[in-house]
C-alpha cells in the first residue's frame, strides 16, 4: 500500500525525480568510467607507446672486428638492450655477421624474413636456410628461393675502436622499424 503510494507519482510526469536521479547516476558512472579508463588504456597500450620513434632501439656491442675473419659469416650473440628481470634467456639474441672486407660488414637478423624462424648459414653452399617453411638466402642476404618475399633483415652497424656494434632491440618482422632501415633491396640472383 505504502510502496504503491510512493511509486505512483513517477508514472504521471515525463521526467520524475527518481528517473532523473537514475539518469544522473548513469552519467556519473560514465564519467567515473572515463576517468578510470584513461590510465587503464594507457597501461594496456604502454608496450606500443613506449617504443615510439625507435624508442626500443639502441647500439649494442657484438665484439672485436678481429673475431669476425674477413670473407666469413659467423654467429654472434647479444643481450637485448631493453630487458626485464623475468626475461631469462629470451633476451639473448643471435645474429649472423658477414665480414665482407675491411670495415664493410653485413649483420643479418637470425629471423627469416618469411615468418621469423632461425635461419642457419651453410658455408659450403653459401646459403642461409630456414628450417620451418623452406626459405633460402644467398650469402649477401638476398632471397634465393622459397616463401620469403624479401632478403634477410639487416641491422645497421658501425665499427668503432676495432669493435662492431649494431642498432638492435626489436624483434625483426616485416612491419618493424628495422625492416625499413636496411635490407629491403629486391632479390637478385
Amino acid at each position, binding site marked *: 500500500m505504502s510502496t504503491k503510494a510512493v511509486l505512483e507519482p513517477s508514472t504521471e510526469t515525463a521526467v520524475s525525480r527518481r528517473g532523473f536521479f537514475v539518469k544522473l547516476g548513469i552519467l556519473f558512472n560514465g564519467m567515473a568510467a572515463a576517468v578510470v579508463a584513461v590510465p587503464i588504456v594507457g597501461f594496456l*597500450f604502454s*608496450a*606500443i607507446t*613506449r*617504443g615510439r620513434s625507435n624508442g*626500443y632501439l639502441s647500439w649494442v656491442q657484438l665484439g672485436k672486428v678481429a673475431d669476425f675473419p674477413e670473407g666469413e659469416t659467423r*654467429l654472434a*650473440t647479444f643481450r*637485448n638492450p*631493453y*630487458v*626485464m*628481470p*623475468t*626475461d*631469462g*634467456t*629470451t*633476451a*639473448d*639474441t*643471435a645474429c649472423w655477421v658477414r665480414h665482407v672486407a675491411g670495415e664493410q660488414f653485413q649483420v643479418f637478423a*637470425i*629471423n627469416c624474413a*618469411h*615468418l*621469423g*624462424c*632461425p*635461419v*642457419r648459414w*651453410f658455408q*659450403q*653452399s*653459401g*646459403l642461409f*636456410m*630456414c*628450417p*620451418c*617453411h*623452406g626459405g*633460402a638466402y*644467398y*650469402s649477401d642476404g638476398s632471397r*634465393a*628461393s*622459397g*616463401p*620469403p*618475399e624479401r632478403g634477410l633483415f639487416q641491422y645497421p652497424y658501425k665499427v668503432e675502436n676495432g669493435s662492431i656494434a649494431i642498432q638492435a*632491440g*626489436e*624483434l625483426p*618482422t*616485416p*612491419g*618493424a*622499424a628495422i625492416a625499413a632501415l636496411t635490407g629491403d633491396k629486391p632479390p637478385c*640472383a
Partner: protein
Amino acid sequence: MRMMITSIGQWFDRRLQLAAPVREIAEHPVPRSTASWWYVFGSAALVVFILQLMTGILLALIYVPSGAEAWSSLQVLNHSVTLGWFVRAMHGWGSNFMVALVLIHMMQVFLFGAYKFPRELTWILGVFLLLMTLGMAFSGQVLRFDQDAYWGLGIGASIASRVPVLGSAIVKLMLGGPIIAGATLSRFFTLHVFVIPGLLISFVCLHLLMVVKLGINEWPMPGRIVKRATYINDYHELTKKDGAPFVPYAVWKDMFFAAFIILAVAACALYFGPFGPTGRPDPTIIQTVPKPDYFFLWLYALLSLLPPSLETPALLVGPVVVIAGLLLLPFLSGEGEKSWKRRPIAVLTVMLIAITLGTFTHLAGYTPWSPHMNAWSGAAVPDQFIHGTTALERQGALIFQAKQCRNCHSLGESGGQRGPALDAVAARLTQDQLIRQVIQGGGNMPAYGKNLSPAETTALVAFLETLHPKGQTPARDASRDVALGNEKPVAQP
C-alpha cells in the same frame, strides 16, 4: 538418517530455491530420436573442458609464469613432483581431445541442420566457443615455454606484422614489448588462465541455456522442412507426441561417452606422457626445427605451400572470410531441409574441408618443403652411384656432397624432398640444362654460380650425367652435336 538428509536438503532449498528449476531442466522433454550416439559430442566436450579447468588449476600450483623460470618449473613438474608428469599429460591430451570433440560436434550440428531457425544464436556462440578453444590451444602451447613456443610466437608476430599500417603496433601489443620475452609469457598466461576461460565459461552457460530453452535439435528427416512460421509449434508437438524426459531417457548415452572420453584421455596421458617441453626458450640456440602442435600443423603446411604473393592476403583476409562465413551461415540457410540426405553440398563441403585439413596435416608430418639440414653430412652418396665412375665424376660426387645438394635433393631415397630426387636426373635434363640449372638456379632452386668454380661445375655436372636408370641413355640435345661437329660438348660456365 534418510529423514535427516531430506530435512537438511529442504532447509537449503527453502533458501536457494534451486531444486524446482534444476528438476525442470533435467526432465525437460526431448524428442526420442535425439537419444542417439550422434548427440553425445557436445556434452563430452563440456566434460573435457571441466577436466581442463581442474588439471589447469593443479598445474598452476607448481607452474611459474615467468620467462626466466617457466621452463624450469615444467621440468620440476615432469620430474620432481609426484605425478606432475601425469597431470601435465592429462592437460595436454585433454586439450587435443577438446579441440577434436568441438570440431566433431560442430560437424554433426552442421550436417544435422541444427544451426537453422530458431537455433542461430546457439550456432554463433558455438563458433565463438570454437575460436576460444583454438585460442586456448595456442596460448597453452605458448605457456609450455620452450623452443617451439618461442618460435611459434615469432611466427605469430610475423603474421601480425603484415597488417597494413598497424602491424608494428599489433606486434608490440601482442608481445608486451619489442621482443618475445618475459612480458610475452605473462600476457599469454593472462589470456590462457583468466581472459579466455572466463569468456568460455560464460559462453558455455549461454550455449547450454539456449539448448535447454529452445530444445535439442530433432533428428532430421528428409522432407521435413524448417519454416520460421511453423517450426516452433511443430517442435512442441513432436516433443509432446514423441518426447521423453532428458534424464534419464537420453542422458545415459552422454554419460557413457563422457566417461569413455575421460578414460581415453587418461590412457593417452599414461601411455604417451606429457608434451615436451622441448629445448630451453633460448633464441641463441638456432639448431632447432620448430613445429606447432597437432591442430595447427595444417596451418604450418599452408604457410609453406602458398605462393609468396598470395600469402599476406590469404593470412589477413582468409580468417575474416572463414569466420564471417561461419557466423552468417544460419542467416544464409536458416530454413529448409535439415537432413544431410537432401543437402549434398553441405556433405561435400565437410568432406572437402576434412580432406584438405587432413592432407595439410599429413604433409606437415614430414615437411617435404624444408631442406633436411643435416642430410649432406648425415647420409653419404650411396655406393651404387659411384661404382665404375671416372675420377672426374667422383670429384663431382664429392662436390655434390660438400655443397650440401642433398639438403634439398634426395639420392637413393635419402636426402631432402625440397627439390626433385636426382636418381634419374640425367634422363630428364641435358648437359646444357644441368649446367644452366646449377649455375642460375630457378624453379625454386638457388643459383650456385657464385659458389662453384668452373672446374667444380664441370665435375658436378659430369657426376649428375651418370644419374640415369640402367639401359636408358641420358637426355641429350641432338642439334648440339651437329652444331659442334659431333664433338662432345664441354662445360663452359
